[in-house]
């Protein structure tokens, strides 16, 4: 919460934000518990696990995958999920020949309903500037090396669509249940900066 004791002096931004909260609450524009509800939702519910559920379902259910690639928004609604920030959702599939990467060069557009809030690096200037001109170099900083024959497709979120990457299902996962697959899928794999590795011990 915002009032707890801090070992270091509180920043100006923090005090300014608390002043804003005080004004909005005192004027009755919103109530404190509405703020709490939104914060709690993003801390506990609206995060990359949602996207991981979509990916795992697509891996085990080819018909769902086809619907997901055709109309992302409708398909994720089947799982009770929403893209949350964008009007339309375009799910782009990584294959042996194609690797997809999402970025917002102009600000910080992100599929928040499926992945939660973006990580700091996604909003930082280095990623925003470089993802469109040297994506292979950016990918290598995440430990992802791609051969030249793999086409890199970068999706710059400049309007009201949002993107999510459907990563390749890794080898050695044939025996895993859908719930077990969910655990393998990282946030970064759905942005497209890494692949989903085979589980430890897989052949």
């Amino acid at each position, binding site marked *: 919460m915002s009032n707890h004791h801090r070992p270091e002096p509180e920043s100006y931004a923090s005090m300014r934000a608390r002043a804003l909260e005080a004004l909005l609450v005192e004027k009755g524009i919103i109530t*404190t518990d509405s703020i709490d509800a939104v914060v709690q939702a993003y801390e506990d519910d609206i995060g990359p696990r949602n996207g991981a559920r979509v990916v795992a379902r697509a891996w085990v259910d080819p018909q769902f995958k086809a619907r997901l690639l055709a109309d992302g928004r409708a398909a994720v609604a089947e799982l009770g999920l929403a893209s*949350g920030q964008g009007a339309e959702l375009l799910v782009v599939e990584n294959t042996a020949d194609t690797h997809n990467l999402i970025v917002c060069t102009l600000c910080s557009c992100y599929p928040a309903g499926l992945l939660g809030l973006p990580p700091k690096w996604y909003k930082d200037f280095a990623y925003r*500037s470089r993802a469109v001109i040297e994506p292979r170099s950016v990918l290598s900083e995440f430990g992802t090396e791609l051969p030249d024959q793999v086409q890199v497709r970068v999706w710059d979120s400049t309007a009201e*669509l949002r993107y999510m990457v459907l990563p390749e299902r890794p080898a050695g996962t044939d025996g895993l249940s859908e719930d077990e697959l969910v655990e393998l899928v990282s946030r970064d794999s759905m942005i497209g900066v890494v692949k989903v590795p085979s589980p430890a011990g897989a052949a």
Partner: protein
Amino acid sequence: MSNTIHDMGGMHGFGPVEPEPPGPVFHEAWEGRLWGMRQAVIRSGKLKLRPGENRGIIETMGNAAYLQTPYFERFLRSTIDRMVAHGLFTQAEIDARTAAIQADPAAPLPRTQDPEAAAAARASLANAPWPKPASGEPVFEAGQAVRARNLNWEGHNRLPRYVRGRTGIVERVNGWYVIEDDHAERLGRNPQPVYTVGFDGREIWGPDAEPNLRVYLELWEGYLEPAELGAEAAFGAETEPAAAPEANS
């Protein structure tokens, strides 16, 4: 303004990307509170921003200030700016309240409750803007060559510098949306279709582009004009696997 620092696609000089392992959603408590109050106010209907209004404010803060101000602090500034502009409170009120907190940081904030409103705020997080009804036929179709117009008007827009004047292929015709541009009236009908347009890496970045690269943007119809596909813009058959799958359209 149009050609301001926020439009950073293709720039050099920002150093390496610094990946971070999954951690707390909000690095500072106030960032979460700010995010929460902004969402709660907007979703209560008490702050109606036109499309792009907040982005336009962030873009006009000054290039040097933009670079020196962290993301959530830019967001804090623009949020207060818009709330003052829309009459939720005055600049004097927010400044006085800030001074009071600086004078007594330990004083607790007021706490109020309205469980029904809180539940509505939570439920509304799944809502997103919906395309507007089509008001005509799209000018372009999938597979057609188009050129991003070379527009350098002042004011907020969503046409990155790095594609202006470049030719690409319409990958997908999306829905109709209100165009977020300070010069919307000069760009034709509104709302207008948004196209996903794919550009070959060499068309944008020249002969030293990374191999086998395509960059896709969503561009409103008014940002595009018909084009003939030149050699640089044609998707490079020599580097592309013969059976490359099409994007999911």
